[in-house]
Structure formats: structure tokens, C-alpha cells
């Protein structure tokens, strides 16, 4: 047991391999556990999406993909990507790794709870994947899991599949709550001396606000999951009305499917921003560091994150326009949806203005950051169509929607995640990755993503519905749709294959990559100033750092270097005096 000089808490350094890497309470190890599990389950979802593409591109050629399988792939792919990959990786992975390092703490405030959070998350993944092996298979009700169809005969997985999905989500929410409490309390309580709120890097702002949002939004999914389970096994009628299923009336009476939709989307829309805000924060830091320029409008960027987070709780019903609602409600939700575009647009302008006349280094993390700007602006603009009731109704449930949300909350955060992994990999592993492989990975992924999702907008505008196993001999669908579908599938295959370049690079570089400089990009934020690379348990050695400035002192006139670390006092060589 060693007592660190300026920290009253005794640090218990684990002595065994299991203590260090399995039952670890070190935020960095937990981050890697979260990240590896999330990426692992994400790969499953990626395989599922490629199976869907095989069916859509070449209908009927692959006999192992039956209609019920297709629906199960759609459902699992969507839920895994949104919840078990993106949420877990951005908050559990990057949140865990970055928050203590960026705010100058030794660890999370509740390390034991943090460890529990990961193991509950792993349990939720195991329960989810176990649904593949139960009678009837996983649920095929679509990722929104709307009752009554999800629990009614005829829908794949309407017996065990939906129950396991809902149980898994409930466990995930318990895991997230434990993690989220840690992220928020660590930011509020464990910032080092001098680290004011407005000196925090944008990455921490994004993760911090997203964690608060998660704590407020996930309870809605929890409630919906518990009530659906009760409808499925206990005979209650929370959501299921009196219906005839497979020719026979069910025992349900009076339930409200719309009630489920409200609960689901009260979680579901903030969830978009729970994923997006950490990505916004991280991409701000990538752009600033690699453009060697302070982030433009830092205060506006932090405020916009808070405002977006708050507004996102008032837009959920724009997912329910076709469910029918009072026109005044439709007007309200369309208006609030469009208002949220204002702080979002401020962020986009600020990213572009940060790039403007910057000393741009087109390294791989920066390439991914710029690619994000393309896909996010693209996805945001197509969102304007869907945010308006009258335009949304004809486009609803078409491939236009698939193209839109994959651009805005699929591809965009994934590009940021790749950029972030390349950016912080040298700090996490102490090694550098291979430049050629990384660039090949970027270009195939970026261009491939466009080749996949841009044609979907065209297909959608023609009226092609999503979630259909086969289109058949439909009169309004021209041959170009079939060619587009084939092209999309080929592009998807290439992008899928390109991810192996990434994994090869990461694994090979971990063992054989050249030793990395502790601060290879010249970053000013605290995580680049650790005494050890990779940082050891406790992060800061004997003494916690003191913060004297914000995280964006780049290219300061008169400074000998083009960055000044946050921990460098004013008056020291290279720093500037107060204005």
C-alpha cells in the first residue's frame, strides 16, 4: 500500500494479473475492457449488416437468409450498434479513459462501482447474444421493439427472443447508471487544482453532458422494458390492445402501443445525442490539435453541448409523426426539432472556422475528423426533411430514413471513434500505428460509406420501403434500384473487408509498432502530460498536476513551441502573460 503525497487515499496497486487486468478498478483497464467488448459485439452487428446487404443486393441467392432471419438481423444490428457499441464505446470506453486523465484525477470517484459497471455490461451482452441460441431465435421486431408485434405470434423471437432482449437492456441500463454516476461525479468532484469547468477540453464536456442525459433518459427504456416483459409473460396489458393474432383473439385488452412509443422515444431521441455529444467533443479536440489552432468559439461549443442536451428531451415525438398525433403537438415537435439545428449549426460553423487558416496537418486522426464534417453535415441536412411533418410522412419507413440516420448517427460517430483511436493510440499503448495501413483504412471506409449510404437516399425518395426482405415485382421500383442495391452491397463488402486493415494495424502495432513519443501530436491537454506513457496506475506519479490555462493554447504568438501544455504556469518559458 502506497500513500501518494498529495492524495489522502491509499492507492491499492493490484499485485496479481487477475487483479490488474480482470477485476481491475483502474479506469484505463476498465476503458479497454469496455472498448474491446463493444468492438467485439459491434463486429457481430457488422456481420449481420453484411448479411442483410447480401439479401438486398442479390435477393434469394443466399438460402441461409430467410425472411425471419432478415428481420432478426435488422433488429440485432440496430440495437447492438446504437446501444451496445456506440453508447458503450463512447462513454464506457472513451469516457473511462479520458475523463480522469483530462481533468487531472487519479481515477474515477467510485472505482469499485466502475468495475461493476463493466461486468454488468458484459452480462448484458452475453444475455443479448444468448438470444441467438434459444428456441425461436432473437427478436425480429425491429430495433424499436414496438409492441404488440414484438410479443405477438408471427414475429420472429416473440417468445424467448424479446424477453432476453428486454432483460439484456435492463441489465445494460443498470451498468450504464453505475458508469454514468461515476463520469458525472468525477467531473464535478475530482478535477485537479486549477481545472475550472471552462478549462475542460470539449471531449470531457461532451462525455459529461451525454452521461447526465443518459442518467435521465435510460430510465424510460428501463420502464418500457420491464412493462414489455410483464406484457409478454405475466399477462398484463400495458401496451398490447385487444387483437386477433394468427386467427385467434389474444387475452390482452385495452393496452396502448402509443404509450410504449412515447417511453421508447423519450429515451430514443436523447440517445442520438448521448452518442453524438461525446463525438462532437472528441472531434473538436481532434480538429484543434491537428489544425494547431485553438477551437473557435470555445464557450459557444460548451454551451451548445449543454443546450443540445437539454433540447433533445423535447423532440422525441418527431419519431412518431406517422403514429398520429394532435396537429398542435406535431407543430410543437417539428419546431423544437428545427430549433435544435441552431446550436448544432453553431458547432459545425465553429469546426469549419477552426480549420480556417489553421496549420492543418492531414494526419489520419484529422482525416477522420474532416470526414466526420462531411457525413455529419450531410446527415444533418437530410434530417431537415424528416423533421418536418409533411415531408416526413411520405418519406417515413423508406430507405431515405436509413440513409439519413446512418449518415448522422452511424457513420459520423464511427468516423470520430476511428479518429479518436488513432489519435490516442500512442498514449494508450506507447506505440505508433502503421501510416500506410491507416490511410488505406481511412479512404476505403470514408468513400465506401458514401457509396453505401448516398444511394439509399435516392432509393428512399423513389419510395422503396425499409425492413422488407424482398421487393418482388413491384411496379413503381425501376431497375436502377436493383443496380443501386447491388452496388451498395459490393461497397459494403469492401468497407467490411477494410476494417481488417484497422484490426491488423492495431494488433501488429501493439507488438511491433515503433515506440511512440509521449506527446506525438503536440497536444496541450493534460492526458498528454502524464509522466509515463502509457500512464501507470494512479496516472500522475507522486504529484497531481496543477492546471494554469485552457486546453487550446496552440500557435500562441511568441511561444517557442506551437502549443503550451495546460500544466505550464504563466511566465514559464513559452507561455503568455494574462491579457
Amino acid at each position, binding site marked *: 500500500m502506497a500513500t501518494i503525497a*498529495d*492524495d*489522502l*487515499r491509499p492507492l491499492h496497486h493490484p499485485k496479481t494479473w487477475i487483479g490488474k487486468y480482470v477485476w481491475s478498478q483502474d479506469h484505463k483497464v476498465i476503458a479497454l475492457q469496455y472498448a474491446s467488448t463493444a468492438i467485439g459485439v459491434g463486429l457481430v452487428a457488422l456481420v449481420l449488416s453484411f448479411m442483410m446487404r447480401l439479401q438486398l443486393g442479390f435477393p434469394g441467392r443466399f438460402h441461409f437468409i430467410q425472411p425471419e432471419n432478415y428481420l432478426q438481423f435488422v433488429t440485432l444490428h440496430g440495437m447492438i450498434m446504437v446501444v451496445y457499441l456506440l453508447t458503450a464505446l463512447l462513454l464506457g470506453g472513451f469516457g473511462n479513459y479520458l475523463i480522469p486523465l483530462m*481533468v487531472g*484525477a*487519479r481515477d474515477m*470517484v*467510485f472505482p469499485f462501482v466502475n468495475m461493476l459497471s463493466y461486468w454488468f455490461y458484459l452480462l448484458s451482452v452475453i444475455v443479448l447474444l444468448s438470444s441467438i441460441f434459444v428456441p425461436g431465435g432473437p427478436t425480429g421486431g425491429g430495433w424499436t421493439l414496438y409492441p404488440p408485434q414484438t410479443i405477438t405470434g408471427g414475429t420472429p423471437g*416473440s*417468445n424467448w427472443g424479446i424477453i432476453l432482449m428486454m432483460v439484456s437492456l435492463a441489465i445494460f441500463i443498470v451498468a450504464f*447508471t453505475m458508469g454514468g*454516476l461515476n463520469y*458525472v461525479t468525477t467531473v464535478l*468532484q*475530482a*478535477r*485537479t*487544482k*486549477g*481545472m*475550472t*469547468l*471552462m*478549462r475542460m477540453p470539449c471531449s470531457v464536456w461532451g462525455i459529461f453532458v451525454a452521461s447526465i442525459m443518459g*442518467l*435521465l433518459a435510460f*430510465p424510460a427504456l428501463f*420502464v418500457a422494458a*420491464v412493462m414489455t416483459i*410483464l406484457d*409478454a*409473460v*405475466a*399477462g*398484463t*396489458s*400495458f401496451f398490447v390492445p385487444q387483437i386477433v393474432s394468427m386467427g385467434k383473439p389474444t*387475452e*390482452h*385488452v*385495452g*393496452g*396502448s402501443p402509443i404509450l410504449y412509443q*412515447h*417511453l421508447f422515444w423519450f429515451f430514443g431521441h436523447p440517445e442520438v445525442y448521448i452518442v453524438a455529444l461525446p463525438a462532437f467533443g472528441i472531434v473538436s479536440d481532434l480538429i484543434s490539435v491537428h489544425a494547431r489552432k485553438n477551437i473557435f468559439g*470555445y*464557450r459557444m461549443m*460548451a*454551451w451548445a453541448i*449543454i443546450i443540445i442536451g437539454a433540447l433533445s428531451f423535447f423532440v422525441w415525438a418527431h419519431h412518431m409523426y406517422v403514429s398520429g398525433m394532435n396537429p398542435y403537438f406535431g407543430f410543437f415537435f417539428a419546431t423544437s426539432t428545427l430549433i435544435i439545428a441552431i446550436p448544432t449549426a453553431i458547432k459545425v460553423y465553429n469546426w469549419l472556422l477552426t480549420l480556417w487558416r489553421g496549420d492543418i496537418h492531414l494526419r489520419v486522426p484529422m482525416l477522420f475528423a474532416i470526414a466526420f464534417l462531411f457525413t455529419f453535415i450531410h446527415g444533418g441536412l437530410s434530417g431537415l426533411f424528416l423533421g418536418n411533418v409533411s415531408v416526413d410522412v411520405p418519406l417515413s419507413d423508406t430507405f431515405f430514413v436509413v440513409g439519413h440516420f446512418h449518415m448522422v448517427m452511424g457513420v459520423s460517430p464511427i468516423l470520430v471513434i476511428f479518429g479518436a483511436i488513432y489519435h490516442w493510440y500512442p498514449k494508450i499503448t506507447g506505440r505508433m500505428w502503421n501510416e500506410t495501413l491507416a490511410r488505406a483504412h481511412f479512404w476505403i471506409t470514408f468513400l465506401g460509406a458514401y457509396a453505401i449510404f448516398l444511394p439509399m437516399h435516392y432509393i428512399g425518395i423513389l419510395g422503396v420501403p425499409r425492413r422488407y426482405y424482398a421487393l418482388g415485382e413491384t411496379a413503381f421500383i425501376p431497375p436502377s434500384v436493383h443496380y443501386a442495391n447491388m452496388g451498395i452491397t459490393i461497397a459494403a463488402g469492401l468497407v467490411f473487408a477494410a476494417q481488417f486493415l484497422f484490426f491488423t494495424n492495431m494488433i501488429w502495432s501493439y507488438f511491433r509498432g515503433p515506440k511512440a513519443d509521449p506527446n506525438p501530436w503536440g497536444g496541450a491537454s493534460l492526458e498528454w502530460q502524464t509522466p509515463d506513457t502509457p500512464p501507470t496506475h494512479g496516472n500522475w506519479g507522486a504529484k*497531481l498536476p496543477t*492546471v*494554469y*490555462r*485552457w486546453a*487550446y493554447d496552440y500557435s500562441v504568438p511568441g511561444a517557442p513551441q506551437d502549443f503550451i501544455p495546460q500544466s505550464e*504556469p504563466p511566465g514559464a518559458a513559452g507561455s*503568455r502573460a*494574462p491579457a
Partner: protein
Amino acid sequence: MSLLHALAEKPWLTPGVAGDAPQRAEAPWDRGIGVGLFLVVVTMIFALVTMAYLMRMGHGVPAGSQGSDWRTLREPPLLWINTGILAASSLAFLLAERSARHGDGTATRSGMIAGGLLGFAFLGGQFLLWQKLSDWGYVLLFSAGLCKVGDPLFTFPFPQTILGNPALAFFYLISVLHGLHIAGGLVAWALTARHVFAEAPGAATARMVQLCARYWHFLLLVWALMMGLFVST
């Protein structure tokens, strides 16, 4: 420094050690913020269940109208007795909190024991309450016809006439969720009680007892609101 003032800082203008951050990131951490945030999460759960209750009540044929599936439950006297027990538990924690603040170890321990035992009593009372409702025929139907799982666990032969009453379903749902919340409170109580019995009275003990008491007052508040919902609808 207020939050708004902190958010208005122009960090690029003010190099130097700033004032609003904690002096240093010290442990052990005060758990107040963590407990408070957790209670916010629990508040969200019960608020959303309440919204669902009200929406479901007004769905289709409004409750009370002919043809409505919403049938108001009779309230067994045990419901009020249990509520009284929970209030007494909260009172005991209040006394423990005050005693801890004044450094009175014996009174703190007594209050903690009384509060915890009353918590267990409330949970036991809730089990009796569910038993009572069951005896009255207010049971959920674990239906073989509905659930295709095919497991004997889900095939209890309960009368189907009970099946469709959402008021009953919500009562069970809310009381079970609250019961889980109580169970969590008992874990917090056990951890706090261990500390109270092992350590001499002091500021740390007083803070732990205070947070434990806060949790139990919150439990009482939630239950009172849920009771109000049941009784008034």
C-alpha cells in the same frame, strides 16, 4: 462561484490558477453528489411510471366509464399500516442523523437499528400485502395462452377474469419497483451501520448517516406520492 458565472469564464484570457476548482482531487470522496444523482435516476423511473399510469388510465375508454378495463382496486388496511411503518423508519433515521451530528454514538446506533428493522418490516409487510391482494383474487395471470415460452413456470392456472385490470398491474409494478428501491436502501443501511458500529462518532460517520437518512426520506416521499396516486385514482 455560481454555475452561471463559471460557465461565463473566458478561459483563454485568464492563465493562472483559478478559484472555482477543488483545491486538489482528494479522496475519500464525499458521496453526496453520487447519492443525489442516483436519486435523480430513481425519480425519473417513478415519474415515468406515473406518466404511463395516467396515460394508460385515460387510454381508450376513460377509467370509470362503462366498458373501461380499468377497475379501481380496494385498498387493504395493511397498505396504510405499511406506510406508517415506512414513515416510522424514516423518523428513526432522522433521529439517528441528529444524534450522529451531535456525536451521540449510542443514540445513533439505536436509531440505525430501529430504522433498518422497520425497513425490513415494511418489506415484509409488502409481501403480506401482495398475499392479501392475491387472496382477494387480484393476481396477475402468467398465461400459457399468451406466453409462447412453453415453460411450466409460466402456466399458473389463474382465473382469466383478473387478467385485464391495468390498475392491478400498475400496483404490482410500482410496489415491486419500490420494493427493489427499499432493498437497495437496506444494502446502504447495512454498509452505514457497519461503519457506525466500527468507528467512533465523528464527521465522517455523521455524513454517512445523513446520506443514508436522506435516501430513506426519499423512499418515504416516493411511496407517499405513489400511495396518493393509487388512492386518488
